[in-house]
């Protein structure tokens, strides 16, 4: 009984292995196949095509965090909305209501942040 129960987690283990393999495999292939000719430009940190300047350990503007927070909230909302939308067909009215309340709460948060001027980049 217990074994059977733990067997359900086998799937997770497999998933974990695949997840680890997914990025490592291309890197390994590239390492095996690519020619090794290092140069100063090649060893430089790649940052969206721009040359990076200075140290990474600097203080950021606080406004950046607020932007990021608002962004994260809505990113998470999408994560919740997606499975909800998939299961929408077989859902009672309460399910719809619950999600509407959730979205409204998030909207309220956005409205509040907006009204407080959190989205103005000063």
């Amino acid at each position: 009984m217990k074994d059977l129960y733990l067997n359900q987690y086998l799937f997770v283990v497999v998933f974990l292995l695949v997840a680890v393999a997914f990025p490592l495999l291309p890197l390994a292939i590239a390492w095996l196949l690519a020619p090794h000719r290092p140069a100063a430009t090649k060893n430089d940190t790649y940052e969206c095509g721009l040359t990076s300047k200075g140290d990474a350990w600097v203080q950021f503007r606080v406004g950046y965090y607020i932007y990021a927070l608002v962004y994260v909230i809505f990113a998470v909302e999408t994560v919740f909305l997606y499975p909800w939308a998939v299961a929408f067909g077989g859902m009672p009215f309460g399910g719809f209501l619950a999600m509407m309340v959730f979205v409204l709460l998030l909207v309220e948060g956005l409205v509040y942040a907006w009204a407080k001027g959190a989205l103005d980049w000063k």
Partner: protein
Amino acid sequence: MMSLYAIQLECLISIWGILILLVDAFKPIPNKRTVGYLAAGFVAVALLYSFAMQPVPDTFFHGMFRLDPFALYFKRLFLLALAAVLLMAAEFSPRIESGVAEFYALLMFCAVGMLLIASVNDFILLFVSLELVTITFYVLASYLRRQIPSLEAGTKYLILGALSSGFTVYGIAYIFGTTGTTNFDKLAEILNSQTGPPASAFIFGMLLVLTGLGFKIASVPFQVWAPDVYQGAPTPVTAFLAVGSKAAGFALLLRVLYTGLLPVSLSWNALIAVLAGATLLYGNLGAIPQHNIKRLLGYSSIGHAGYMLMGVAAVNALGAGAVLFYLGQYAFTNLCAFLAIIAVTAATGSDEIPSFSGLGKRSPILGLALFLSMMSLAGIPPLSGFFGKFQLFAAVVQRAQTDSKYYVLAAIGAVAVVISLYFYLGVGRAIYLQEAEDATPIVVSKPMRFGLVVCMVAMIGIGIFQRPLVHASIMAAKVFSLH
């Protein structure tokens, strides 16, 4: 629709909190005090309304949520605490630089978490509601962001709180892993069906969950944060920590131990008893050398957690009822003390005990309120604290009839009471026997006066006519199958 009925109080308070936020964001009200009084008044109405609500035998949200007498008892307690704390916050608002409306709203959101805690019947909801409370407190504790003590309090609470939350969620995972459920009722069923001692992995998980709850109620060895945070946090937040957060911790502890974990009570009651004894001694001994009243009350709150843990460790109906009664009267007593402290610090700007000297002359009502609450905390009849302690000791002694080791716990409790007299009377001495350096009278606002009078009447009233509250607490404790 029944589900909506079940969570109506939570909805009401959330909506009101959101309204305060939005209205203030678009049309800031210049007089922040009025907003606080309004909010407190609204919560008081909700409190009155809650007495019209009836307990429901079913569970809601797939067995996660209960609206039994126990839940209602605690919801009323939290609403009472919230109303009083909002009153304090209104009084305190001039000292907050910005975001007064947010302060009120955060207090209300925190209370929503507590209201949920009252009804928890599942580890998932337990964790979510606990975090709702704790995270709001992180912000609230550091609300005076230009003051180092407040920031320090917030940081300490954040880091240690996160640590204990980590323990809790880890423990929940172990319990789920070994039993396959997070629901308290199902957990009890599964544990009942098992023979022999529970698996070590399960005990491990249980202890980790208890660690998280022990942090909330400030029991030894998870109490170290309490004095620092109590002292540093803004006073209304300290009051809410002492009354609301503590009661929430006990609500969870009782719910978890007396429903889900009741079948394995033999594997935790000794631990709780030992912790109770240690907590009693730590809190009461540590309070002796203190000279800051908020820090003193921090230690005192550790001590009182010890008293109530005595009742929890007794694992009988008397004990459960006694803990509930104690929390009820403790709310009035502590709120009374903090109301008085806020009024005094607003006038003197200091919360060191010497600044309370001659308070009896500077403001008779504040002096009396603080004096009475200290006496009630010390357990002096006829104030409510006496009867609360009386019941707790009775519960332990009843348990000791079958397990004589409990007499040791009762004896430690008695020693603790004696020790506590020393520092509580020290405050009383400052109020009435010492002369004030600055004898200007302190003006107390009307709503404050009202709150103080209500608390004092309750303290004395409960002390003399214990029946109504005893009845309510016994009814609430009946939801557990104890005897």
